[in-house]
């Protein structure tokens, strides 16, 4: 018995069956998007951040060791309207000169009673850190996987467009963020 425990400790140390040490997924940047939906003058529009880095450690059968760490280049904003992008990067909104990156890191993952996976984390945007929960949908397919995450935020929580721009009939407060990531190079354990 004592002997067996020793072997298990050794195995853990060597990284066998230790998902925390599993290599993270590789994100296929060309096929991955980080988009958001908001309203302007009550009309819905979609924007994207064209450049972001994501480190994805995720095995649906080992949520305890799952971790997302995402860093977003705010200046890569693209809402398909050059003037709007220029304004949005200015001091009244994202203030990209002062806060060129946003950062999201998960703190814990949980499963709801209806089987959905939620990732709790902290989003730091425009120098303000707030808890944000992602709805996680993960579909493995052989050695690849797609990961779709959705979060609902309030832009005013992060001081984006306050003061004269706070009016939600001009710019909606609610923002839905949707990340779609194509992953490869890691594996999902078979245990259920």
């Amino acid at each position, binding site marked *: 018995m004592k002997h067996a425990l020793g072997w298990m400790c050794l195995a853990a140390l060597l990284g066998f069956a230790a998902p925390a040490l599993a290599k993270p997924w590789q994100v296929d940047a060309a096929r991955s998007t980080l988009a958001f939906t908001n309203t302007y*003058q009550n*009309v819905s529009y979609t924007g994207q951040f064209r450049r972001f880095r994501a480190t994805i450690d995720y095995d649906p059968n080992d949520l305890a060791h799952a971790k997302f760490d995402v860093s977003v280049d705010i200046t890569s904003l693209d809402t*398909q309207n050059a003037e*709007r992008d220029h304004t949005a990067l200015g001091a009244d909104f994202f203030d990209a000169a002062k806060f060129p990156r946003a950062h999201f890191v998960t703190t814990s993952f949980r499963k709801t009673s209806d089987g959905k996976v939620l990732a709790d984390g902290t989003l730091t945007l425009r120098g303000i850190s707030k808890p944000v929960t992602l709805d996680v949908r993960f579909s493995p397919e052989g050695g690849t996987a797609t990961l779709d995450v959705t979060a609902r935020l309030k832009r005013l929580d992060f001081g984006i467009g306050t003061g004269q*721009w706070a*009016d939600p009939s001009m710019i909606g407060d609610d923002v839905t963020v949707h990340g779609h990531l194509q992953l490869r190079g890691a594996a999902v354990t078979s245990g259920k």
Partner: protein
Amino acid sequence: MPLRSTEAGWGALLRAFHWLIAALIIAQGILGLAMVQMGLTPAKVRVFALHKSIGMTILGLVLLRIAWRLSERRPLDPAAMPPWQRLAARGVHLALYLLILAIPLSGWWFNSASNAPLVWFGLFGVPSLTGGYDPVWKPRALLVHQTLFWVLVALLVAHVGAALWHHFRQRDDVLHRMVVGPRADKGGE
């Protein structure tokens, strides 16, 4: 007061179209020239939204007006009017119709190519003409919109000048019949 135009003068509906569209065009010119000078504030966004809504209103009214105008006769020109003046008047009127169609259309086109919202007086969305952002056509549409505006200003100077000339120099009823309709002594329908 007849609704339809007669050989003696313009009917009430055409006069209503004329003066309503004229008032909206003047408002649009003032708004358009003022709004581009404004610093970026929510007020500027609202003035732009108003300019777009009025522009779409003008477009709709002009289409209705053309349909109505085609359905009725044109009052007779003053007998003393030489052929070159009749031709010039027809030419300016035709050009004015084309401009007050083309200017709102080019504004709509510019707005579409800019991927900017267009909600008519906050009530309903007007669809995009370009299906999204179009950085190639955007500056062209703006150039068309602005150039045609100044052509319109020039033609309006001629149009108003001619109307005043008819009224004060020729002392005919060309202006009168557009303001209050045919003179009673000239008969109506």
